[in-house]
Each structure stands twice: as C-alpha cells, then as structure tokens.
C-alpha cells in the first residue's frame, strides 16, 4: 500500500511541475513579448525612436531609390530610419500588426485600406500633411475610408493602350488610325490580327477588362459605393463587346496565347496591342528593348473616356513609436521633387498634381498615361471586395465560351454581400 502511495505522490509532484511549467510558459506568452496589445495606451508616441520602412519592391531600382531617399531624410532630420524590403508584403504587414510591432511606415494598397483602417491599425495622418491638398482628387478618394483621408498616395499608375509600331505599320495603319472609339478599336484589332495572333491581348482580370465597364458607364459598385451594380445592362454590354472580339479571334486573354501578362504578350509580339499601365515601360526596356511602341489613351466607350488607376499609399501604423517622425518622413517622400526622383528611378507617376506637368515634359512618350488621370476610376475598396474581384477573375478566364450575363449575375451576389456589410 505504502509503495503505491509513494509512487502516486511523486507522479503527482512531477505532474504539478509540468503543469506549472506550462502555466509559466503561457503567462510568458501572454505578458511579455509578442502578443501584448501595446497600442492601446497611446499618448506618448513621438519618442523619436528609429523608424522602419517596409516596402514591397519591384526590383533593385525601386529599392535603391527608396533607400537613398530615406537615408537622405534620416541624415537631414537626425532620426534613425531604415528600409526593409518585404518578400511578401501583405503577410509581413499582417504579422507585424498581429505581433504589436508593425513597421512604422509601409506601402499599403487600396484593397487593404478598409481592413486596416477598420481595425484601428492605421494612423489617419494624411489630412495634416503639408501638401495634403495637392494630391489628385481621385487618389485622395481611393484612400478615403469613412470620410477620413487616411494615408498619402505615394504614386500611381493608369492603364493605356500600347501599340506595336512595326506591326501597326505592317498592317497599313497610320497615326490617324489610333482608335478613339470602341468601333475603331475593333476595326484596328481586326486589321492587326494575323492568323492565330490576335490584334489585342490583355490579362484575364477585371483590373484590365474593367476599363470597358467604366467606358460604358458601368462599374462594379455605384458611385457612392453603397450598391452593387455588377450585372447592370451597361456591364453586360461591355463584357459582351469584349467577348465578341474574342470569339472573332481579334482579341484574346494574354494567358490564352501563352503569356503571363499583357506586357509579356506584347513584348513577345504575340499581340499587336495590349492594355497595360505605365509600369510596362520598365519591363519593355529590360526584357524587350527592341520593340518599338507607342502609348495612346484608351478609346472612349459609348459613355465617354475612362480608365482604371492603381496606387499605393504610405501607411503609418497607429502602434508606431514615432508617429511624428513618420509623418515628417512621408512629407519628405511625397514632395514633388522626391516623387520625380522616384519617377526617374522606377517609372511611376507622381501623385501630386503640381508635378504632373514636369513628368509629362520629362516623359513625353508616356504622356497618355498621366493625361488619363483626369478620367481614371478606382476599383471598389470595400472590405472583402478584392476577394470578390479575385473570384470574378477566376470566372473571366472562361469568358470566351461563357455567358456574360451569367458570369456577372454570380459576381453580383457576392458583391452585394460585401457592400451590405
């Protein structure tokens, strides 16, 4: 009997030890390092601590340009600041916010704004910037959530029509033939089509085909963002227009002709025209330097000119130790001359209107892109909208043999669920 009790006692003891260790561990997790919510107490953020800038870079040119700019500011202001290049920006941002130690300044895309602004991760600073009034209005709108201008657009891009000059001339077309209406677009695409090589190709995604929706007065949501309008008659008509061109073989998705994106199809001369943004300039220079091309604004639809624009902003974390310094840094980075330096380095367009003229003078061949800013629209930014668009893109891949009305009806349901939240 005694022996039994003895063993039992020691077992209990060791069990207690194990449980104790586990409990200690748990408290260690809860109390100390990563998981504590440190942003709540607020107040004394501007302790002048070092600033981390997290960017998702397109390549060395962008990394070096941003690093140089941040270093220059750090020297000027005396605040320590360093740039970190994210391998997977969304994931690293999410991790930072969850851990309570986010980067102070970071790239933030329009589709992430609602989620991070909604859960209080972001500092709404943009209205206090020195050049706050100078941003393009449509860009300001893109980063406005619940009537607050959250973060400063760092630059932007619009979509334009890219034309391969050699193929254009081979088809007997001239400067005057550059399409300005849907009918003209269709007819030049027909003339440029050569056997299995379509005249026009672009990526199978709303981010490209959406320009036709907007040109026809449609769009995924109503102007105030309160209603889903995916299956409106305008959109169905626009999508049918694109589908007809595909059925006739004069247009194709870039993926259907063996290219990863519109730029690749265009560079490899798998199509004579594509719809892409100004980032294509860098790709053409690096990968396809021999292709001679020009940029035109997209043709106007039945309801006038329209294009889509893409932009990122400089987000500042609400949990940052040095919000004041971060705002100063963004002020520096969004100033007209600094944005021109970025434009020189990696081909973006400045987000402030006063720099637009300068940009146009520096890059006359790209003028169509910045001219398109006047009629550029944003993608819906409601929380969950990018999920719906991703789903829509999945269905657009099958557009050629599909039914536009049916595709849009399905997306409409999903979009309704998003806007009614």
């Amino acid at each position, binding site marked *: 009997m005694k022996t039994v009790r003895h063993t039992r006692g*020691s077992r209990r003891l*060791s069990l207690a030890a194990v449980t104790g260790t586990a409990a200690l*561990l748990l408290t260690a*997790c809860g109390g100390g390092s990563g998981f504590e919510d440190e942003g709540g107490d607020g107040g004394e953020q501007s302790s002048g601590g070092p600033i981390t800038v997290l960017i998702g870079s397109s390549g060395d040119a962008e990394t070096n340009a941003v690093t140089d700019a941040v270093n220059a500011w750090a020297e000027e202001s005396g605040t320590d600041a360093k740039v970190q290049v994210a391998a997977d920006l969304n994931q690293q941002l999410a991790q930072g916010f969850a851990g309570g130690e986010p980067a102070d300044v970071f790239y933030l895309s329009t589709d992430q704004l609602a989620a991070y602004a*909604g859960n209080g991760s972001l500092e709404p600073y943009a209205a206090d910037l020195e050049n706050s009034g100078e941003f393009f209005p449509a860009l300001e709108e893109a980063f406005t959530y619940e009537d607050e201008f959250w973060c400063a657009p760092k630059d932007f891009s619009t979509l334009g029509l890219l034309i391969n000059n050699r193929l254009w001339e081979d088809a007997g077309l001239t400067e005057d033939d550059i399409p300005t209406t849907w009918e003209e677009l269709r007819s030049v695409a027909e003339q440029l089509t050569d056997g299995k090589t379509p005249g026009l190709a672009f990526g199978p995604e709303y981010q490209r085909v959406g320009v036709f929706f907007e040109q026809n007065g449609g769009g995924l949501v109503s102007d105030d963002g309160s209603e889903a309008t995916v299956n409106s008659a305008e959109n169905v008509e626009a999508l049918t227009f694109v589908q007809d061109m595909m059925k006739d073989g004069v247009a194709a998705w870039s993926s259907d002709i063996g290219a990863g994106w519109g730029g690749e199809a265009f560079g490899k001369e798998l199509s004579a025209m594509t719809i892409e943004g100004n980032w294509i300039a860098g790709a053409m220079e690096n990968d396809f330097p021999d292709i001679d091309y020009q940029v035109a604004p997209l043709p106007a639809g039945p309801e006038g000119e329209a294009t889509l624009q893409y932009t990122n902003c400089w987000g500042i974390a609400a949990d940052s130790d040095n919000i004041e310094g971060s705002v100063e840094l963004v002020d520096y980075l969004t100033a007209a001359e600094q944005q021109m330096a970025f434009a020189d380095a990696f081909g973006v367009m400045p987000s402030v209107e006063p720099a637009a003229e300068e940009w146009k003078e520096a890059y006359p061949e790209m003028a169509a892109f910045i001219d398109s800013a006047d009629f550029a629209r944003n993608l819906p930014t409601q*929380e969950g909208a990018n999920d719906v668009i991703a789903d829509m893109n*999945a269905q657009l891949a099958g557009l050629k043999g599909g039914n536009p009305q049916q595709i849009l009806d399905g997306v409409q349901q999903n979009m309704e669920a998003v806007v009614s939240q």
Partner: protein
Amino acid sequence: MVARAKSSRSPGPGIKGRQQLAGWIFISPVVVLLGLFLFVPVLMAAWVSVSDWTGRGSPFAADVGYVGTENYSQILTGGGLATQDFGTSIRNNLYYVLFVVPLQTALSLFLAVLVSRRIMRGRGFFRTAFYFPSVTSSVAITVLWLFLFSQSGVVNKILSWFTIDGPNWFADPRGVIHVFLRAVGVESAPQALATNEFLGISWWQWVSGPSMAMSAFILMAIFTTSGTFMLLFIAGLQSIGPEIEEAAMMDRANAWRRFIHVTLPMLKPTLFTVITLGLIGTWQVFDQIYVGTQGGPAKTTLTPAYLSFNEAFNQGDWGEGAAIAFILFAIIVFFTIVQRFVLRERDTVKKPRTKRSQAVAVEVER
C-alpha cells in the same frame, strides 16, 4: 492506472519513484519545446477560430469577442463567397488526393521492387536517381515544372510529336472529366447536376475532375514523393527474408503470385505508413500552390491550406482562416481513420481461407 499496477508489482519501489521523476526531468525540454511551439499555438489558433480577432494586437486582448461557431458556419453553410471558395478548395484537393495517393503508392512500390532485385546491375545508381527529386526543394521543382508545362514547353513539344495539341497547362482551368465528357458529346450540365449544389458549388462543378493546372501538380507530386516512399518500401522489402520467397517458390507460386500473396501482405505495415503519410501530405499541399499558381487559374488549384493562409494574411479574415485549418485537420483525421479501418488486420478470419483456397489451387494445378 497501468503505471500504478506495474509499479506495485515491481520490487524496489523508492528507486522506481525517483526514476519516474528523473524521467520527467529528462523529457521536460521536449515537453517545453512542444508546448511552446506546438500546443500553445494550436490552442491560440483554436481560440482565433471562434473569435472576431481582426489581426491587430493580441488575440487575447479585452476587445476581442467570442463569436461561437460563426466562422465555421460562414464557411460550411453560409452559402456566400467563403463557402464557395471552401467548396472549390475541397473539390480541388479531393481530386489531388484521389489521384496522387494511389499513383504515388503504386509507383513507389513498383520502383522499390525493381531496385531491390538482387540481380539488377547498377541498383545504387537507380536508387539515388529515384530518390533525387525528394531531396530537391519543392520550390525549385515547382519552378522547373512551370517551365516544363508552359505553352511552348518541353511537355507540349513532346506531345506535338504525337500530333497532340497540348493545353496551356498552368493557365487552363478546364477539368479533365469535363473535357472527356465534352469529347463524348456531353456539352452542358445535366439539369440535376447543375441546379443542386453542395458547399456552394454545383454538383456539375464537383465532377469536373482536376483542372489541367491541377493535373500538372498531380504529376509533380507523384514525381517528387515517389522516391521518399520507395525508400520506405525498400526497407520493408529488406525485412522480408529470402527464405520466405524460396518457400513460396517451392510451392510453385509464380512471380506475380509471390508478389500478390506473399510480399504485399507482409508489406502491409509499410503500406499503412505510406498511405497515411501520403494522405496527410496531399491534404496539406501548400508550397507548390504558393509558388506556382496562387490558386489560379479560375481557382482550380486553390487548396484548403492555401485558402486558409490567404483568408488570414491577405484578406484579414483571421477567424475564417483558423477555422479552415481546423476543418482541414478534421478531414485528415477522418481519412486516416477510414484507411486504418480498411487496412486493419483481418488475418484471423482471412488467413485460413486463403490458405485453403491456395491449397485447392495447387491441387487443381496438379
């Protein structure tokens, strides 16, 4: 209870007790490590899956609310995009498992039998060659695969020798069963399949089969993992002594019969291991998808593991992401139990009968 009964029987109780304490101390580093890096995170994820945590600060902070099974019902019965995505990912992964597990098991067994033959020359070379894909990083192989299966890639070139117009693999969302049905004249979905749905997608979509893109991933999985499982089978084959095979030879069993009735039953434990590991591995497929297609084309390579990651990190739906992870866990456990049941030892009932039938067969041959 068992420990107590044992220790009461054994002599020298005091030493035994101290031994036990020492045992606990010895394993404590592992217990602590497992607790810290496995048990605690799992518990945290379990909490996140029933909370409305938005991804900012601690999930245990005061402002994070308990929402019960809302995240789970959103995925399983909500009927919205979350359900559709989950249903699509389950369909994709189900086909992936359905093709990869049997094929990789069969192929690895075949390779193992080949390279285990004692008369074969250059066994070592072939063993290394077959094992090579397994030790190469899956990211590297995925990139290689993207090249091989591109529109103008090697695979399509070879197909063109046989006048087959290869698909644009990684951009082709058509399911292979749909393609086959279309080839035999079934153009659109039968009414019953098109109108009824499960997990947000119609039965017609459920029977689509793996897409061309997923088929490429299936081939890749078979290619990369067969080597690993071949090793397991080789080990299993080596534990079967040559005398058993000799005995079967004496019974005039031919090579095929020796394999089916002697080797295979004796490999059953290995088979169980291989299928279990295969099931777990295939249901958790993530890195190939992340590197290769990110779920595209048309979501036909979306898998629950990738969807979980995407929901949490890219969409900020941490609760749903965690819930998908737990549903995936349940699916894996379920399938493992099923195959355990199928492969359970039935020797007590079956053995006499097979023996007798074999005896009869031998009689008849005479």
